[in-house]
């Protein structure tokens, strides 16, 4: 699998993502700096987590307007798989590549802990290695992960199966509507999620529940 990781100043889980992609696919991803206007030909583009531009103004708002994001949008339109994790999810929302918004956690505090996720749609390019309804563990680490969408949008994404991951068993850490933890776009090739699958891929992490997400994409690319 060929992959690329977008690098913007202030992102800080890029190294975690690069490590995960390297360990799982056996090949280090390409890295793409904020000012690039063209992306390499890859199977997967990842926008990792962190605090791009300090999360000043609004999480993801400045990043969404950088040149590299126009290139990401073009690739997404061509059907290339794009995944945004945490700040990456916020950026995809701000860029209009996914519907809805992420607000400050209901607790108003940063939260880092393991939560339970239900695979709400195992029929996507990102989740086919999971079984439908499977409950997995996954860490979260964010201040602004409270997913919100207006009732019409919510009804649409729920109806179309665009909700891919839900917080399960009462572990919703941020107040997200319908326990939404991750969604895909209508075409199913752009995924945004708050939890960090890249931090749960080996025994040292205390589990490997994040691994199938990467393996799903890999099996398509192979």
């Amino acid at each position: 699998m060929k992959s690329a990781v977008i690098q913007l100043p202030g992102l800080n889980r890029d190294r975690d993502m690069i490590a995960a992609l390297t360990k799982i696919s056996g090949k280090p991803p390409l890295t793409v700096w904020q000012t690039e206007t063209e992306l390499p030909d890859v199977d997967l583009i990842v926008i990792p987590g962190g605090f791009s531009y300090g999360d000043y103004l609004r999480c993801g708002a400045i990043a969404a307007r950088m040149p590299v994001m126009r290139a990401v949008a073009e690739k997404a339109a061509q059907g290339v798989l794009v995944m945004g994790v945490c700040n990456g999810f916020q950026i995809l929302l701000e860029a209009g590549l996914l519907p809805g918004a992420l607000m400050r956690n209901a607790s108003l505090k940063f939260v880092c802990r393991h939560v339970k996720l239900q695979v709400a749609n195992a029929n996507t390019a990102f989740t086919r290695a999971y079984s439908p309804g499977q409950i997995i563990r996954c860490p979260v680490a964010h201040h602004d992960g409270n997913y919100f969408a207006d009732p019409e949008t919510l009804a649409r994404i729920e109806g179309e199966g665009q909700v891919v991951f839900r917080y399960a068993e009462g572990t919703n850490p941020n107040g997200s509507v319908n326990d939404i933890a991750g969604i895909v776009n209508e075409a199913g090739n752009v995924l945004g999620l708050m939890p960090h699958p890249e931090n749960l891929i080996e025994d040292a992490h205390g589990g490997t529940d994040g691994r199938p997400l990467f393996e799903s994409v890999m099996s398509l690319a192979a």
Partner: protein
Amino acid sequence: MPQANRDNGAKHATSRPIPPKQQQMTIPNTVPITDELIAAHGLKPDEYQRILDLIGREPTFTELGIFSAMWNEHCSYKSSKKWLRTLPTSGPQVIQGPGENAGVVDIGDGQCVVFKMESHNHPSYIEPYQGAATGVGGILRDVFTMGARPIAAMNALRFGAPDHPKTRHLVAGVVAGIGGYGNSFGVPTVGGEVNFDPRYNGNCLVNAFAAGLARTDAIFYSKAEGVGLPVVYLGAKTGRDGVGGATMASAEFDEGIDEKRPTVQVGDPFTEKCLLEACLELMDTGAVIAIQDMGAAGLTCSAVEMGAKGNLGIELDLDKVPVREEGMSAYEMMLSESQERMLMVLRPEKREEAEAIFRKWGLDFAVVGRTTDDLRFRVLHQGEEVANLPIKELGDQAPEYDRPWVAPKAPPALDPASVPQTDIAEALVRLIGSPDLSSRRWVWEQYDTLIQGNSLQIPGGDAGVVRVEGHPTKALAFSSDVTPRYCEADPYEGGKQAVAECWRNLTATGADPLAVTDNLNFGNPERPEIMGQFVRAIEGIGEACRALSFPIVSGNVSLYNETLGQAIPPTPTIAGVGLIPDWSRMARTAFAAEGQAILLAGAPEGWGTHLGQSVYLRDIHGRAAGTPPPVDLEHEKRTGDFVRGLIRSGKATAVHDCSDGGLAVALAEMAMASGIGAIIDEPPADPAAAFFGEDQGRYVLTAQSDDEALQALFEEAEKAGVSLVCIGMTGGRELKLGGARAISVAELEEAHEGWFPAFMQG
């Protein structure tokens, strides 16, 4: 170098010789030097005389500011230096001891760990969020200035009584500030301490620790080399924030403390993260000759330190300094404590390459001066020479005091007969749900403990553990410890105990303890009884560090932690680092399985005997009495080495040290961490002392309950000269301590997890 920290500056009046902001005019360098001005700079008359003798003339206004910045307690260690010299700082593992930005310790395979702890007490009390945030920022900068990528952070926090009106505000702000900076920067916070005591009502303590990983052949120092080379300013722009912070706002607190709020700097973790990446990228190019972060007294301290260490003069042209405000005077620029800045001596042929890196990261890069061969510190501003001072003497000739001290009197030993019997089960439930022993989850879930993907143990165990990236088996363990109530009762024993407990916590994971950094928080050293606490604590720390081959490689002293004459209890925080050669053979505190034998190592005959200064005595019986538990350092070492051996050989399946709350609290924590209960035998002597005594040098461990294997363990212990007794078995969902009522693990958890969130909700 010392960070922008206001903890140790000399006493001063509250007036500031800076015009009101609306005037925004440059202060002429010709402001007359009056006695009031000298006093306002925290300089005593004899210290001012020393300046006159040194330079043979009256200093300019800017020069006075420079002297006050270099000669305050924080930068000069003038009260503590004499005693700090007695501490052990070397060992075969030590690459760099105290005196640089951080200590450096070898971990083999061409790698080293770079670490330090530093206080941000005064600013955090005045403005908790920014005070704590910039404390974290400062210590991270100390680590990456040396070429190390930060891989772990901890913080030791002390607050006043939970019911004091300010405490909740401080807890909320400090925790949010630490998280706000560390999370955004991207370093996992893997350990720390939180304690409450009314003696911190007027002075909270925020001690921030950071550790980084570097290659031993790529460590960067602050010593300048080469004449006529460019001095480069890196990072964020200079503003008026924190002007004179190290001197002006450092002293005991009084009623006027709210006026000091503007002297607290504002942190920008985004810029710091960019600065980290830019610096590491720059260091890879070979462009850096010397580098120093700007902490306390900003440009002044960093420039003087680089020059003085390298036997070189430095000339700065302030017109080249990137500023974010107009009309800043030379005085303000030299004393600004704006954050996220660095100073560097650059290889001139690499200038373009270096500048490109900083431009890429959106940071300032400006050549602001040059090294010279005349050993002068010269500062130019708008065509005028505003300072011209002997650079070596600015640092070396700072006053040094041998302050008078009186040895504190040790309290009488506790009469055990004076402690009434209590219900053991009820006492345990109360203790594990008390302010000091309840779960700190509310705190550490606001910190990113998992970023970088290497965290093997996060807060809640004996020590934080982080994998060494790029190595298949190695990991580093981190722990921060001190028991202020022991130090208050007997600073010498308390100092020893802080070191021993840190060593023990690292050992309990299976790590070889390598070295420590100390953060010595005390009251006003001009009072002989406070100085006595300081001296005796240092003696205890030194003795323990020597006995355990656990040298001190960096540290910080924070004095004047007093409000209206009320000092904090002596709080010498010890933060240690240990190396685990193979993390697949690492111990955790959680019981590993049901049906395992529970063993107690290093205990006296009655399991526990010492209730003096225990949490049990204080929180159940409302008494602070007796001597603290003494630490037998030979016993400590012998027991620890034995336990570490059992971890390495895979014979110990879980390990936890006994500390606050004694054996009962250790067992409860092991049960809660695993969800597995235990049945403990009736102790051989007084159950209260056995379960709640705080005798030192003890570990609880578990092992397979196979008779033969256990017999072999007991023989091994006997050979090592370590006491080892089987005290019970793991199993079920209840903890039963001898004849006391069985407590369900769920009940323990409810009490343990409940206190902090309920307290913060109010």
